[in-house]
Structure formats: structure tokens, C-alpha cells
């Protein structure tokens, strides 16, 4: 599966457009990490546990998007975009979406 943020896959041609595919996941920051992050907050800087958490979430969202694309018969997803939104109760949604295509 080829993944790009471009409208094409460089070096290949798109033979068929399948359409929008997306994957998302909602994760909550678990209590232990939250307390650690709370302590870290007094000195500021990177909250490593959250960085890791959101990275895992993004990989998961991307996997789901790829799964959807594969099910639709695509071999590439172009114009991929990510978005993160903070929904209630200390949980974040991470979403990945793009256009599933067939390239050759």
C-alpha cells in the first residue's frame, strides 16, 4: 500500500479513483500517565507519555484507513490528512483520511 500526502504517487499513474477512506480512534489518557504528566507540567517541556500515546493512536487510525482502502480494492491512498481533536473527558480523537486509488 502506497501512502502519500500528494495528489499522486510519484513515478506511478492513477488508473482508478475509488473515493474517500478514513480511519479514526479515540483514546483516553490513562490515569497513571495523567498523574505523571500533571507533575511534569510544573517544569514544562515534552510530555513523552502523551507523545507516545498519540503516536500509537495515529498508527492505529492509519491502519484502519489502510484496511478500508484495501477492502475497497485500492493499492494506494493519496492526499492523506491527519487531524486530532480533544473531545470531552480527557480523551483525544485521532483521524486519518485520504483518497483511495489504484495505481500502476
Amino acid at each position, binding site marked *: 500500500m502506497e501512502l502519500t500526502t*500528494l495528489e499522486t504517487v*510519484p513515478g506511478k499513474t492513477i488508473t482508478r479513483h475509488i473515493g474517500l477512506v478514513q480511519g479514526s480512534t479515540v483514546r483516553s489518557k490513562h490515569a497513571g500517565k495523567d498523574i505523571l504528566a500533571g507533575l511534569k507540567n*510544573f517544569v*514544562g*517541556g515534552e510530555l513523552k507519555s502523551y507523545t507516545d500515546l498519540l503516536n500509537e493512536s495515529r498508527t492505529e487510525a492509519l491502519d484502519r484507513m489502510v484496511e478500508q482502502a484495501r477492502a475497497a480494492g485500492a493499492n494506494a491512498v493519496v492526499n492523506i490528512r*491527519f487531524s*486530532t481533536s480533544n473531545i470531552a473527558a*480527557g480523551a*483525544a480523537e485521532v483521524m486519518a483520511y485520504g483518497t483511495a486509488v489504484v495505481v500502476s
Partner: protein
Amino acid sequence: MDGIIQIGFFVVLLAIGLFAGRANEQRHFRQLAADEEDLRDIAVSSDRGAAAAGSVRNAALVVGSVVIAEDYFKRVAASLKSLIGGNIMSYESLLERGRREAIVRMKKEARRLGATHVVNVRLETASLSEDWRAQRPMFSAEFIAYGTAVTRTP
């Protein structure tokens, strides 16, 4: 007595933020400068850039991200500054650190793949501090930089 303890607590947090936070920030800026120098050979653009030329291969998605939080001193400085308005310097430097770090991580991933360019780069910022439990939670935000790593063929 309660008042004194509260003030003492406040002063200690402020001092931690001021000294540890500032030391942290200066170290981070030095690290960023070194990383950016090291990764200078990878060209980054927000348009199609090198891919427009057509002679590229090995396109792959690369992502860099970081979650960064304010320290207590920045928080107090920001709330004081917001009384009179204008630039909130303490947040400007925080957001700059986050964004540059995300770009550096994205470029590191591109280097791992042996790419020469990262094209069509997008930057995202998401605030993570809207916590329902706290009245005014500490500010933290996620920065993401992502794009398509490509290798230019001569």
C-alpha cells in the same frame, strides 16, 4: 497560616517553573539547532516541490509529532500578560519549540528511509488541555508535521 502555606506553594512552583523550565527550554533550543543543522540536506516544502519535476521515487508518508506543555512560570506570565494584551512571548517560544521539534522528527524519519526531500508538508496543532476536571488546566498541545518523503533521481 493557610494563606502563608498557599503563597509558599505558589512561590515554589513559580521558582521551579522559572529555573527548571527555562533551563529546559534553553537546552531544547540548543538541541533543535543541532538537529536542524544535521538535517539540513533534506529539503522540505509545503507544495509539491521536488515531486513536481517528476523524477522522484520511493514516495512514503512520514510523520513527526510531539506533545509539549507549559511550565508554571509561563502560565503565570501569560495570565498577567493577557491583562494588558499583546504578544504572549512565553507561549510563542513554547509553540515554536513544539513545531520545530515535530518537523525535526519528521525529517529524521525521512532520513531513515533514505529520502532527499519531504514534499507537501502539512502542520497541525491540537490543544489537549481542555480537561473537564480542572477549572483552568495547564496548557499542552500536540504538534504534528507530516508529508511525503521522496528520493530525487538524477
